[in-house]
Every structure is written in structure tokens, then in C-alpha cells.
């Protein structure tokens, strides 16, 4: 007879695994991948492939030759980071800058802390911010959307982003109304569908929302962070807009433009770097929403999502400590 296994309970286990969660996130990013390829052509595919390959290679190299331990690149987390990094850069970024981004994302932001689950900051965002500061010209030369089979995109032809146009215009002393009336301004519909300049993955709010719905249905993410994030951003920017609509844009622009949707649904919800209790997640989301609007309105950069999420990442241990789940039997309310 076979030997029987003896182990502690429970003896059954859910089907959900780290792998199924990570590849679930990858599936959720597919609509945004399609939109990016549709608008930026094969350049977008090139950037995504290079980024994912570089992330996998960096992780494999570190695990195999530096740590000399088990290799876990099939768990899907490096693929997620790779796609997110690609989503956060312009479609015409040179390949070697992407590789540097992958080395920073995986090598510094993830593996140096101990790999999956141990990193305090979102790896893709660290990679993006590193590139933004180190290669400001390449990182903000947004290619004009060309369509799938359009002519080769060159650095010379660059298009405006909604937030970029706004910042420049306001700095030049124009009012919001004047800026929005100018032909350069992409407008609401283009923000929604994706026909605007910008990073690969951030251009279409609809594609990102589709992916978000998928993640919510499959319970990969919960509503707490996105709702708190979007809610606080809308309320805060709404108050500013009501105070002076000539100096501040309306909340809809803030929601649809830039990296808001990408950041809210795909990066702020990164489980490794966000709080663990529902209350903590709401605090995290509110903080990130406020910071995003503050940076957009008063900061030096037109976009604030990356910085806002990274700053809130730093608060996660404190938030986890401060906001505990509601314990059973703590508040005794009987009857």
C-alpha cells in the first residue's frame, strides 16, 4: 500500500494561484494593447515586446546567476511589469532606453528587495520615473497617432498630450477656455477613445476600463482603491474648477487624460505595493487622488499619477499598521 500523506488542515485549496492572478492582469491589458497598436502601429508592438523580453531576461539572469536559486519567470509577474513599463513610455522610445528601464524596474525595484512580493514600490513605475528623469526628451516626445499601417513614426513628428497642452498654455498665461478651443487640444472624445498623443497604454480610457471590469469580475482587484482614487481626484479637481474655471480644467479632463485610468486600475491596485485592509485601501486611494491633482495643477510636470502612486506606496506599511480590519466580537452591539 502507498504511504499516506499526513499534513495539517485544510486539505483542499482554491484554484486561484499567483500565476492565475498575474496572467489575469495580462489578459486585462489586452484591450489597451490592441488600442496602442491600432493608433501607434507596429512601433507599439515593438516597444511592448522589447520591454517584456527585457524584463524576463533581467529576472532570469538575476535569479540564475546572481542569486543562483530557483528561476520563477513563468509566474507572470515580470510579464506584467514588462507590459506596464511599455504602457508608460512613448511608442517611439529607442530600444536601449527600454532595456535600461527594464533593468531598473526588475533589477533595482524588484529583485534587489527580494523579488516578487517584497518590493515596496511598483517596479514599472520606478522604471518609468527613472527614465523620465534620465531621458526627459525621449520620454516626452509623443508620436502622433498614425494608425496600424501608417508611415514610420519619427522623433520629428510629435503630437501634444492633453495635459501637456494644458500646462504649457496655462504657463503662457492663457485661460482654460482658450486652450481648449485651440486645434492642438485633443478633446474629450479622443481622450476616451485613444486618438491622442501619450504613452502607449494610457491613451484610451475605454480600453483600460474594459480591462478593469474584467479584473473586478474575476476578483483580481477590489473596488476600494479605484473608487477612492477616482472619487478623491474628481472631488478635489471639481472644487478647484468651481473656484476658478479659467485656471482649472473640469474633472472629466482629469479623469480621461494622461495616465489616470492606467494608474488607477493597473498600478495603484498592484497588490504587492498597496494596503491590505479595505479601509487602508480607501485611504491609499484618496491620498493618491489628491496627490495626483496637486502635482498636475501645481507641480513642474504636467502628469502626476506616477509620482502620486509611488509616494503613497511609501506610506503602505504605516497605513497597514493604522487601519486594521474590523475584528469579530470587538464592537459588541447586541440585539
Amino acid at each position, binding site marked *: *500500500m*502507498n504511504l*499516506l*500523506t*499526513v*499534513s*495539517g*488542515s*485544510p*486539505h*483542499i*485549496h*482554491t484554484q*486561484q*494561484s*499567483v500565476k*492565475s*492572478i498575474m496572467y489575469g492582469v495580462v489578459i486585462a491589458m489586452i484591450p489597451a494593447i490592441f488600442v496602442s497598436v491600432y493608433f501607434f502601429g507596429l512601433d507599439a508592438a515593438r516597444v511592448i515586446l522589447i520591454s517584456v523580453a527585457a524584463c524576463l531576461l533581467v529576472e532570469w539572469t538575476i535569479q540564475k546567476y546572481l542569486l543562483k536559486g530557483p528561476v*520563477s519567470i513563468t*509566474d507572470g*509577474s515580470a510579464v506584467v511589469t514588462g507590459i506596464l513599463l511599455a504602457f508608460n513610455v512613448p511608442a517611439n522610445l529607442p530600444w536601449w532606453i527600454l532595456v535600461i528601464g527594464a533593468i531598473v524596474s526588475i533589477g533595482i525595484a524588484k529583485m534587489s528587495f*527580494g*523579488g*516578487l*512580493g*517584497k518590493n515596496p514600490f511598483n517596479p514599472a513605475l520606478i522604471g518609468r520615473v527613472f527614465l523620465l528623469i534620465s531621458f526627459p526628451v525621449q520620454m516626452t516626445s509623443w508620436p502622433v497617432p498614425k494608425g496600424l499601417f501608417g508611415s514610420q513614426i519619427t522623433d520629428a513628428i510629435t503630437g501634444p498630450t492633453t495635459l501637456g497642452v494644458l500646462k504649457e498654455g496655462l504657463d503662457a498665461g492663457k485661460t482654460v477656455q482658450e486652450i481648449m478651443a485651440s486645434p492642438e487640444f485633443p478633446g474629450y472624445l479622443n481622450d476616451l477613445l485613444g486618438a491622442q498623443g501619450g504613452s502607449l497604454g494610457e491613451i484610451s480610457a475605454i480600453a483600460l476600463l474594459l480591462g478593469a471590469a474584467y479584473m473586478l469580475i474575476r476578483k483580481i482587484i*477590489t473596488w476600494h482603491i479605484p473608487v477612492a482614487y477616482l472619487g478623491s481626484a474628481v472631488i478635489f479637481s471639481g472644487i478647484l474648477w468651481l473656484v476658478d474655471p479659467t485656471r482649472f480644467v473640469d474633472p472629466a479632463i482629469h479623469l480621461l487624460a494622461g495616465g489616470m485610468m492606467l494608474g488607477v486600475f493597473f498600478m495603484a491596485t498592484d*497588490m*504587492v*505595493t*498597496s*494596503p*491590505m*485592509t*479595505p479601509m487602508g485601501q480607501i485611504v491609499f486611494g484618496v491620498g493618491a487622488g489628491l496627490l495626483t491633482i496637486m502635482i498636475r495643477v501645481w507641480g513642474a510636470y504636467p502628469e502626476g499619477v506616477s509620482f502620486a502612486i509611488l509616494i503613497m506606496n511609501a506610506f503602505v506599511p504605516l497605513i497597514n499598521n493604522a487601519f*486594521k*480590519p*474590523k*475584528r*469579530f*466580537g*470587538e*464592537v*459588541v*452591539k*447586541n*440585539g
Partner: protein
Amino acid sequence: MKTFKIGGIHPEENKLSADKPIEVLPLPSKVYIPVSQSLGAPSKVIVEKGAVVKTGQVIAKGESFISSNVHSSVSGTVTKIDDITDTSGYRRKAVFIDVAGDEWEDGIDRTPEIKHEITLDRDEIVRKINEMGVVGLGGATFPSHVKLMVPEGRKAEYLIINGVECEPYLTSDHRLMLERGEEMVIGVKILMKALGVSKAFIGIEKNKKDAIVHLSMICSKLSGIEVVPLKVKYPQGGEKQLIKAVINREVPSGKLPIEVGCVVNNVGTALAVYEAVQKNKPLIERVVTVTGKTVQKPSNLLVRIGTPVSTLIDHAGGLPEDAGKVISGGPMMGKALTSLDIPVVKGTSGILIMKGEESKRAAALNCIRCARCISVCPMGLEPVLLAQLSENQLFERAEKERIMDCIECGSCHYTCPAGRPLLDYLRLGKNKTGILIRNRGKK
């Protein structure tokens, strides 16, 4: 639909034996009856090697307040009194009996006639239950008479009967409610009388519709007993979760149900109470589910206490070839057995045989801080944090984070996508923190 509010999971139900009527398992040739079958102090053996015993005769006496009598479940000769590995994996004292015939003690009413009228008074009921070795059959095996003695300054308002059976696979309580419902309900009446309460609830998960209908019909003729259908969610049958679901009261941390005016008993216990009080029959047999995906005949068996597990498995078609693990109890909280000679005891609700490939745990990966363990914890704890504290031996901190509230339901471990053995660490932490607390009390 009533339910507890915080956390919970919904594993595959796999109630393979739900439509299998209770069968009487033929008498085994040998039984091993452990003498400590209840929580509390072990009972004292009062028979010697060579003694001839009858079915229902007391063979070990409970001598302290929290302890219980143990009776011989068969007639025959005591061959030895020796240690045997029991369900827990520890070696404990047991009485070994070679079975001969089935001669019962005098005074035990074995007729199938149902006795409705309750003639004993409160004290007599409690004494009877103690004498007949009735303990909680839900698994914790707390001596039943102790639960009936409400401490000074507390008052029992409600009796809650646990017919939830939220563990996957198990169906012994389900069958018992269907086939012995009428007697069980008289047991509930007896418990109500002993506690002096006028209201009792029977909580049953909604996946047992037939049992809900059947018991509702029986109770409609009586006053004061209400069947409460509950949402199918694990651990609905946890004592504190059940109270919350049924009467919406939360038992405070570290306290017993009586704190909120409740006493909870399992349906099997209620039947045992009926048999003890009305039929003078000691607790010597119970219904045990034998089940598993590859078990030939998943069944519900009426088994004498002390019968080796192998006898039950043989009756259900033998140990499947691909068997990888044999569990006493359900898949969420049951204990993996180290041997098939281990006897059925009062707390054995089922024998579950898992396939080889399901038996081994997957390797644990890094925690990805997904917080699923926190969201499923029915006690509102942070299993990931408690496991970390245990691993790092920070038990003082673990106590502050309420590790002792853990009911060991296993929802955290079940749900962890990284397959981390959270409950292993929590058990370790509870054990060490418990020692810490007790030592503090001594100073």
C-alpha cells in the same frame, strides 16, 4: 438569507453521500476505546485486563468537573489497556476489547418506540447526560453537561442547534436530521428544559433543503423551536459565526457563547441527549460519513465507538488504489490520520479519503500581499501578519493582534494563491502565545 458577515469562503461542496441512508455497520471483531474522548481531564479506567464487559457498561469514569464517562460500545473481553495512537497523532490510553456477541447492559431501552414525554427534571437531565457520557459531537467534544450548567450571573436565553454541516463532503448530520429528526427534536426539547429557555433555533445550510423542510414540519407542531435556513458559506457552522448568523449577536473575544445568552449544541448531540435521557442509552455509537472522490460506496454508517477506521473503509468498498491521505473529519478542519487502526471516537464525524495528487501541498511561494487571507478571515484577523509574527516568534505582539481569536477554520490557508501554510503558523503561534498567557497567570 441569514449568514455571518465577516469573511468566509465557498469551497466545492462535494456532498457525495447526501442521499445515502444511514447503514448500521456490522460489529467489528475488535475495538480500541480511548479513555479521553472529551475535552478536559482524561477519565479513569475502572476495568482490568481480562474483564468481561457488556455493551453500555461504564469502563472509564470522568472524575473532574470537565470530563466525561466512557462506556464500552460492545460486549466481550478486555484484552489489554495500553496506549494507542489516536486521531490527534498522540499516543493515549485506550481499552482494547475483543468482541463476543452483543449483550447489552440492563436498563437500556433498545426498542424503536419514540418517547415524547420528558419526565426528568432539570437536575436529573444534567446528571443523566453526564452519566451517559454525552459530549459535543460537532468535533470539539466538550462535555455536554458542563454546557448545561449556566454560570452564576449569566442567563441562557436561546438554545441554538447546529445542523449547518458547512464542511465539504460530510453528510452525517444531514442524514441524521432526515432520518432521526423526530427524536433529535425531542433532544432539543430536553436541552431547552435543562437550560430553562423557551426558544431554540436549528441552523441549517440551504444546501440541505430536504432537512430544512422535514424539521420545519416537525417543529411546526411544537412551540418554541424554529428552523433557520442559512446561506451556504464556510465556516457557517463555527460556533461564533452561527450565533452571529442566527440571532445577530457577537460573542466577545475570548468569551463563551453564554456571554450573549446562548448555548450551542450540534444536532448529533441533541440526538445523543434524547437517547441518554429518554432511552437510558449511553453514547456508544455515532453516524460517520465515509467518503472521497474515488471511494467506491460513499456512505453514512452508524458505527460503534472504538471501531478501527479500516473497518469503515472496507465497508465502503476498501481503500482506493490512488488514496493519498485519510482524514478524520472534513477537508477544512479534519486531521490526517497516521494509521488506519485509529479508532472512531465520539468526535469523529467523517472519514475522508483524498486522492494521491490532491493530498500533497503545493510548494509555498512568496506572499504577494494580495490580502485575500484578510478578506476571508471570519474573525476579522490578519492571518498574513499573525503568521509572520509566529514565524519570527513575536508572540507578545501576536497576542495584541488577537491571535487567540483564531478559530482555525483554515479559510486563510485555503484561499492563499501563493499556497502559504498560514494556518500551520497560526496554530504554532496560538500554542506558544497560550503558554505565554498561562505562565503570566502563574506569576
